[in-house]
C-alpha cells in the first residue's frame, strides 16, 4: 500500500517536472527573441512627429511614472509572430526601459465577456494601463472605457464602438491606433517586383477583413507602380489571390502555397497569421530542394522564420507594421504625461509606422536603394496609395 503510494507520488513528480521543463524551455524561447527584437531600433519615436504630438486636448496632463502595464492577448499565443508578440515585445521593451511592471493575460475564449473578464482581472490587480491588440477587442474596450474610468486603454488596429454600430467612440482614457497596411503592402510589392524583375506572384490572405485586404490592395499597387515606372514585368493573376478564411489553418496555408508554386508563382505575399506559417513551411521545403520560391512576410520581420538549413531564408522581405513601436510609444507617452487620450492615431509611412525591415539580406542593394527612393516619395505625399479596392483583384 505504502509502496504504491510512493510510486505514484514519484510518477506524479517526474511527470510534472518533465512538463515543467518543457514549459520553461518554451518560455525561454519566447523571451530570447525579445532581447534581440526589432523593437530595439527605437531611435526616432514616430509618435513624436505623429498627431500624438498635438497634446492640447489630452486630459492626462501630469507625468506618471508609477503604473503597471497589462495586456490581454487576442486569440492565439503570445509567441504568434504577429499581433500578440509584437505588442508584447514593445511593452516589454518599454517597461524595461522605464522600470515598470508588466503582465499579459490570456482569455479563456474570444467573446466580449472573456475579454472583459481578463481586463477586470488586470484592473483588480492594479494593472491600470491596458493594451489590447486586434479589432476583436473593439466592443470590449467600448464597454471597459466606461466601466474603468481611472484606467487607460490602448486599442491597436481597432476603434471602440457599440455592437451593430460603426461609430467610433474614443473616450478620454482610450487611444485607438491604426496602421496604413496599404502603404506597407505597397513597398513590399515594389520590392518584390524590383527583385524578381519578371514572373508570377501571388497573395494569400487570412480572413477577408480590412487590414488584410489593404495589404493585398497595396501590394498590387506596388507591383503596378514598378511595372509602370521602373521597367519590371511582374504579373499577378486572379486565381493567385486567395483568402483562406481563417488565421489558424496551417495545413491549408501549406496546400494553397503548394498549388500556387505549382502554377508557376515565384513569390507569395502571405498576410494570413497561422495560414502564412503553412505557406512559409511549404516554401522552405521547396527551397531546401533547390527551388526558386519566396515568401513575403507580414506584420513583423519574419526573416528568421523562413531560415533554411544553409542559413539562408526564403523570406524575401516583410511588409511590416510596427506594432511594437506603437505599444512602446504609448507607454512612454504615458510616463511623460502626454498620453493622447481620446485620439485615433494613424501609423503610416510618414512617421515610419509601416515599411520594410531594416535588414533585407535577400534584396539586392539596387532594389533597396530604389525602394528607399520611392518610399521617400510616399512619405512626402508625392505618391498616394489607395486603401480601396478600385479595380484591383479581390
Amino acid at each position, binding site marked *: 500500500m505504502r509502496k504504491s503510494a510512493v510510486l505514484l507520488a514519484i510518477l*506524479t513528480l517526474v511527470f510534472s517536472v518533465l512538463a515543467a521543463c518543457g*514549459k520553461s524551455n518554451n*518560455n525561454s524561447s519566447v523571451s530570447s527573441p525579445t532581447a534581440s527584437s526589432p523593437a530595439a531600433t527605437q531611435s526616432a519615436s514616430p509618435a513624436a512627429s505623429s498627431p500624438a504630438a498635438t497634446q492640447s486636448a489630452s486630459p492626462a496632463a501630469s507625468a506618471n511614472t508609477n503604473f503597471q502595464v497589462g495586456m490581454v492577448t487576442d486569440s492565439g499565443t503570445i509567441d504568434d509572430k504577429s499581433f500578440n508578440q509584437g505588442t508584447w515585445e514593445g511593452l516589454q521593451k518599454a517597461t524595461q526601459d522605464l522600470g515598470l511592471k508588466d503582465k499579459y493575460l490570456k482569455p479563456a475564449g474570444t467573446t466580449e*465577456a472573456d475579454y472583459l473578464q*481578463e481586463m477586470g482581472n488586470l484592473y483588480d*490587480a492594479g494593472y491600470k494601463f491596458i493594451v489590447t491588440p486586434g479589432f476583436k477587442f473593439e466592443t470590449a474596450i467600448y464597454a471597459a472605457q466606461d466601466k474603468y474610468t481611472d484606467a487607460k486603454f490602448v486599442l491597436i488596429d481597432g476603434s471602440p464602438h457599440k*455592437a451593430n454600430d460603426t461609430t467610433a467612440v474614443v473616450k478620454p482614457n482610450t487611444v485607438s491606433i491604426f496602421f496604413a497596411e496599404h502603404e506597407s503592402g505597397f513597398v513590399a510589392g515594389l520590392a518584390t517586383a524590383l527583385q524578381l524583375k519578371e514572373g508570377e506572384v501571388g497573395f494569400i490572405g487570412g480572413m477577408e477583413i480590412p487590414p488584410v485586404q489593404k495589404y493585398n490592395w497595396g501590394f498590387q499597387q506596388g507591383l503596378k507602380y514598378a511595372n509602370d515606372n521602373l521597367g519590371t514585368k511582374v504579373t499577378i493573376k486572379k486565381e493567385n489571390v486567395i483568402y483562406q478564411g481563417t488565421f489558424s489553418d496551417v495545413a491549408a496555408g501549406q496546400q494553397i502555397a503548394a498549388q500556387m508554386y505549382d502554377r508557376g508563382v515565384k513569390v507569395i505575399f502571405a498576410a494570413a497569421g497561422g495560414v502564412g506559417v503553412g505557406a512559409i513551411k511549404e516554401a522552405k521545403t521547396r527551397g531546401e530542394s533547390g527551388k526558386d520560391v519566396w515568401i513575403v512576410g507580414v506584420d513583423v520581420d519574419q526573416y528568421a522564420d523562413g531560415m533554411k538549413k544553409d542559413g539562408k531564408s526564403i523570406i524575401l522581405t516583410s511588409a511590416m507594421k510596427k506594432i511594437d513601436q506603437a505599444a512602446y510609444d504609448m507607454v512612454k507617452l504615458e510616463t511623460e504625461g502626454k498620453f493622447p487620450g481620446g485620439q485615433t492615431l494613424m501609423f503610416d509611412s510618414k512617421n515610419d509606422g509601416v515599411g520594410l525591415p531594416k535588414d533585407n539580406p535577400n534584396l539586392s542593394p539596387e532594389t533597396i536603394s530604389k525602394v528607399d527612393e520611392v518610399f521617400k516619395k510616399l512619405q512626402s505625399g508625392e505618391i498616394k496609395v489607395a486603401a480601396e479596392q478600385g479595380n484591383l483583384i479581390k
Partner: protein
Amino acid sequence: MKNSLIISLCAVVFGLLAGAVLMLATGHNAVTGYSYLFQGGLKNPERIGNTFATASPLIFSGLAVAFAFRTGLFNIGVAGQLLVGGFCASVVGLNLDLPKVVLLPIMLIAGALGGALWSVIPGLLKARFNVHEVVSSIMMNWVGFWTVYYGVQSYIKNPSSETESKQLPEAATLKAHWMTDLFHGSYINLGLLVAVVVVIVVAFIINKTTFGYELKAVGHNRDASEYAGIAVNRSIVFSMAISGAIAGLGGVALYAGNASNIQIGILPSQGFDGIAVSLLGANNPLGVLLSAIFFGLLYSGRGFMNAMTDIPPEIADSIIAIIIYFSATSIMIERLIRWLIRRRANAKLNASQDGKVKSSHVEHD
C-alpha cells in the same frame, strides 16, 4: 455511484497536487497560487456569477458527451453542434420580433433542432452503414464550422465587423436583469437555469424510463439488445439526436447568453472541454453538473491568479490540462483503488491462511 465520486475527487486532488508541484518547480508559491485561483472564481458575487456563466455551456457540452457515452456512443462533434445550434437560434432571434417569453423558447427549440440535425447525420451513418461516429462527427465539426462561416457572412453579418454576426436584440438574449443585479454585474444568464433543468430531465430519462433503459442496453451490448427485441438502429439515431440537441441548447447558452453574437472562424473550445467534463463527472448527469462548475471555477479564476502572481498563463493552462489529464485517466485511478483493495484482501487472506497452516502444523506435531 459512490465509488465514482471518490474516483473523481481523487482525480481532482491528484490534478491539483500535480499542479502544485508544477508551480513549485517553476519557482512559484503553490499556496498563494491556488488561493488566488479560487479567489478569482469566488471572491465576490460578480466573480461567482462569472464562474457559473463560464460553467453553463460546459454543463451542456459535458451532458451531451455523457449522454452519448451512456448509450455506447462517442459524440466528439459537440463543438460543431454547439456552433450550429447557436447559429439556428441566432437566426431566429434576429428575425422574429416577439416578446422575450415567447421568443426564448422558440430560440431554444431552434438551437436544439440545429444541434440534433448536426448529430443525427453521424447517428444515421452509424445505424445504416456502421460508419464510426467518432470519424463522422468530427468531420461534421468542420462542415458546421464552414457552414456557419458562410451563413453568418451572407445572412446575419454585423455591419460594424467582418467576422461577427449581428448583435442579438435584448429580447433575444438569455441575459436577465435580476440575475445580473443579483450577481453585481456579472454576465451570468438564464442559460444556467436551463442547464439545471436539462440535467434533471436527462437524469430522469436515463435512470427512470424504459426508453432510457433501452438506450443504455444498446450501449452495453448491441447484439444482446437486438436479441431482446430492442430496435437497435433506432436507438442509436435517437441517442445521437438527443446528445446533439443538448449540445445545441449549449450553443444557445453560449451565443445568446454568455455572448450575444457569433464569431466566425472559431470552433468553440467548450465542445472539446465537454469530453473532459463528462469524464470527470463519471458520465453521470449530476456529476457533469458538478464537474462543469469546477471547470468553470478553474477557467474564471485562472486570469486572477495570473494577474496577482507571476505565474504565467501558460503554466495555468498546464495546470488545468493536468487536472483534465487526471480526470481523463480516472479509469487508472479506479484500477489503482481496486488493486489496493484486492491486495489488502489478499494480504488478509494470506495471513489467515498462514494462521491455518501454522495451526495445522501444531496439530500434526
